[in-house]
């Protein structure tokens, strides 16, 4: 199958205009001994055959809609996506356009992203949102870049809570390899009972950034107001990694005084898709806008007096600043920022509040019921939103294996990242989990504990 529309006659006419005899003659500049390698690839399929092959591969997976009951979260959440979201995403005008460099013929993308920016600032309470990053982890790493640029490299210490998503911390370590940073707080062997105030002893005059998560990786809701006040007293910036669904209900990070609020917006209209592509959001105060990486859309007027939108502050970016740019980013997650905007608009204030409330209610019902089972208990007493840690009577890996045999993904095994938390499952519950599913989980675990 091919998407080349040129007929043999047209090809010959074009070759003649170019002044060569054959297609292969166009490639004389290529070293002869390496020219035209035989590629060892399977022969071409037709569309019908490819559709069948891919369908078969997809069918091999156990998915969380048709086969499995799932309580997996840990940074990727199974939420309902209203039909309207994908219908808008499937408009070729949106998904087959490039980055909106030519604003006269890109107002659709530009206004949609401007609205996305506005929705995210209203959600987080912050003043500015960029047009998005690759995912929550890289958005968090960009917060480190912002802080580094803000202090011009004069402060080099970053204090990271061990209850920031382990993969996010890992990405920060990868990203900052060239900065010579000093990292503190990122000690997964510390007692998880210790609250965020313990971090303060690590914050000093050389600290550029404190990174905490809200709710934290264990699902707990902390009010970071005091921590932020204290960090500010030492001159450090504070970044909160937030779950957007939780923000629909909880005190905003802006109200706590956060300087940067980032996170993973996958819960807003983006399917699980085995981990990507997702949508990193990045919001901050207006005073840091010039240090912020990523695309930014601003309002203006055109020469006909019409309100319109353009990419702005592009002088920060790599194509102008080259090696002096804060970041090398050229794209955002355009289409997925559109997904989040349509999701938020279609559910609206009421629908979004319903989603948050359902997550909260169902998670608490599940926690309550699980806590009653012999040998099982909730690990932490702090308030939580839709995710919590369950202490099990045996290693979490064994519990998960037992649940898997009963068609259930039990939760995330925390021992993978926290060696001391061997019997600990991170359980996520969303509006997609019915009472019946939760009851099934409880029943199966009861059976297990009696065996």
């Amino acid at each position, binding site marked *: 199958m091919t998407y*080349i529309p040129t007929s043999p006659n047209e*090809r010959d006419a074009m070759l003649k205009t*170019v002044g*060569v005899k054959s*297609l292969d003659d166009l*490639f004389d*500049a290529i*070293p002869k001994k*390496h020219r*035209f390698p035989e590629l060892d*690839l399977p*022969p071409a399929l*037709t569309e019908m055959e490819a559709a069948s092959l891919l369908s078969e591969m*997809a*069918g091999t997976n156990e998915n969380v*809609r048709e086969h499995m009951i799932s309580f*997996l979260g840990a940074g990727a959440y*199974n939420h309902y996506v*209203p039909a309207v979201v*994908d219908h808008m995403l499937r408009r070729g*005008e*949106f998904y*087959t*356009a490039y*980055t909106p460099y030519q604003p*006269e*013929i890109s*107002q*659709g*993308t530009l206004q949609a*992203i*401007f609205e996305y*920016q506005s929705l995210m600032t209203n959600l987080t309470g912050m*003043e500015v*949102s960029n047009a998005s990053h690759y*995912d929550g982890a890289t958005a968090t790493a960009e917060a480190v870049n912002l802080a580094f640029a803000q202090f011009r490299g004069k402060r080099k210490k970053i204090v990271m809570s061990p209850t920031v998503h382990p*993969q996010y911390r890992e990405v920060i370590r990868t990203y900052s*390899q*060239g900065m010579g940073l000093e990292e503190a707080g990122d000690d997964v062997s510390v007692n998880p009972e210790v609250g965020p105030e313990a971090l303060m002893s690590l914050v000093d005059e050389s600290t550029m950034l404190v990174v905490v998560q809200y709710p934290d990786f264990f699902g707990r*809701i902390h009010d970071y107001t005091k921590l932020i006040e204290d960090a500010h007293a030492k001159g450090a910036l504070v970044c909160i990694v937030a779950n957007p669904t939780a923000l629909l209900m909880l005190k905003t990070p802006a109200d706590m005084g956060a300087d940067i609020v980032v996170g993973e917006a996958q819960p807003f209209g983006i399917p699980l*898709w*085995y981990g*990507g592509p997702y949508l990193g959001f990045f919001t901050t105060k207006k005073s840091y806008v010039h240090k912020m990486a990523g*695309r930014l859309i601003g*309002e203006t*007027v055109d020469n006909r007096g*019409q309100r*319109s939108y*353009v990419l702005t502050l592009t002088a920060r970016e*790599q*194509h102008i600043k080259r*090696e002096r740019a804060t970041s*090398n980013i050229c*794209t955002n997650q355009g*289409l997925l920022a559109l997904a989040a905007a349509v999701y938020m608009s*279609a559910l609206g*204030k009421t629908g979004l509040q319903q989603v948050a409330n*359902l997550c*909260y209610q169902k998670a608490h019902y599940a926690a309550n019921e699980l806590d009653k089972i012999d040998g099982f208990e909730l690990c932490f007493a702090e*308030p939580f939103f839709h995710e919590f840690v369950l202490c099990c009577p045996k290693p979490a890996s064994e519990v998960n294996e037992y649940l898997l045999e009963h068609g259930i993904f039990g939760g995330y095994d925390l021992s993978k990242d926290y060696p001391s938390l061997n019997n600990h499952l991170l359980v996520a519950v969303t509006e997609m989990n019915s009472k019946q599913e939760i009851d099934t989980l409880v029943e199966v675990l009861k059976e297990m504990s009696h065996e």
Partner: protein
Amino acid sequence: MNSTSTSLSAKIIEPTVFELSSPGRIGVTMPASDVPETALPPKNLLRSELPLPELAEVDVVRHYMRLSKFNYSVDDGFYPLGSCTMKYNPKINEDTCRYTGFLYTHPLQPVETVQGNLVLMYELQEWLKEISGFAGMTLQPAAGAHGEFTGVLMMAAYHKSRKDTKRTKMLIPDAAHGTNPASAGMLGMSVVTIPSDERGNVDLKALAAACDDTVVGMMLTNPNTLGMFDEHIEEVVALVHKCGGLMYGDGANLNALLGIVRPGDLGFDVMHINLHKTFSVPHGGGGPGSGPVGVSERLVDFLPSPLVGIIEEADGDTAPLYGFVTPKQSIGRMKAFHGHFGGGLVRAYTYISMHGPDGLKAISQYAVLNANYLQARLRSTYKIPYDRICMHEFVAEGSFEGSDVRALDIAKRLMDYNFHPPTNYFPLIVHEALMIEPTETENKDTLDRFADALIKIAEEAKSQPELLHDAPHITPFGRMDEVKAARELVLCCWLPENYETLK
């Protein structure tokens, strides 16, 4: 900060979702709770208000439909944006990437339950290695620039592992895309710019002079942003390798090379591949992209973790078990989870499976034919500063002697002829550059209409220059005041101040 609009007098063509909102209007609703009620957290942990829009579903659909019509896209017409490879995006990709089994798999579920995803990723890794000639491949990077950063991190890690710590210089040709120096800058390397010679190749003398034992490597786009395949590529690679440097290939222009030559065979050590350019993943109005990175044998151990690998070999009738493996000296993780699986990898896999070796070669042959055909048709009207057989794109000068018309005016005027303009003002080494990449998915009629339009515009530039200065005329929006946008910085909007009392 609450200046809702700087442009109060401006005419509103399409209101924002905040302006369309009405108190109490209901959109998509959720089911009632089926569990006993739990009290909410204490009030001091709750937000006081949620200032988000309220719309009905029909309002939402019409709003985004109207917005979509303000966009020009590949589905609308010819989009010859140089170095962006705006080829047609096959519709089947949009279906396969949404198959239930792909859409609803969680990134942390046990590998035994996602063998379909893992086989797809493993085979795609193998295919991309075969196409590019590399020994190893990571699918993790989220975009081209992300892949570049990954590559540069591996180059640094390689030298560090050999205790070769003097190396701090990255060599980058003057024609390079801005991401190349920015990626090197992110690791604190200094950038040495290498000039191009009069045929658009790397200037070998300048390169030789810059090569010493402080060189990390060279970042080269080949074919470069002039659309030229470097005629001395083997000498370039040899010079860099001889001084102990590594060769980075920017894969932005891979659409010219499928089945034509493999960068790995030419001696490149590392290269990112833009699945959203070469392998038909749609650009999405600026992402998500997908930027796998291939490496030569000596960098395999430094690849990001995790990679997809076989964790239990096949045994008799049992298929192998695919899972995740960590390279020995990995630079670490580049993003959460496993890369742009659904949006990037499934589409690219679908596309490659439908082409096979001959189909892939045809893509590059016709991409190059189309570019050369346009170049031949425009040669007598527009100055082509580097005029030889080009690869998949070429650069013309968008200015004429004795005229004040600029490349920007030509670009804007093309919109009136229903074409997306070429990339302009890039590469920086060409005066008033117009960088034209037609791709293989356009027919001769389209190319002829585009060439005719550009020739007509060249005439207009002489006879009615104001027609170009004021262009575009027939688009829904005219030229924007970009200075105002940067000066006033209105970056978001809110519900009107008196919202609750409205209506």
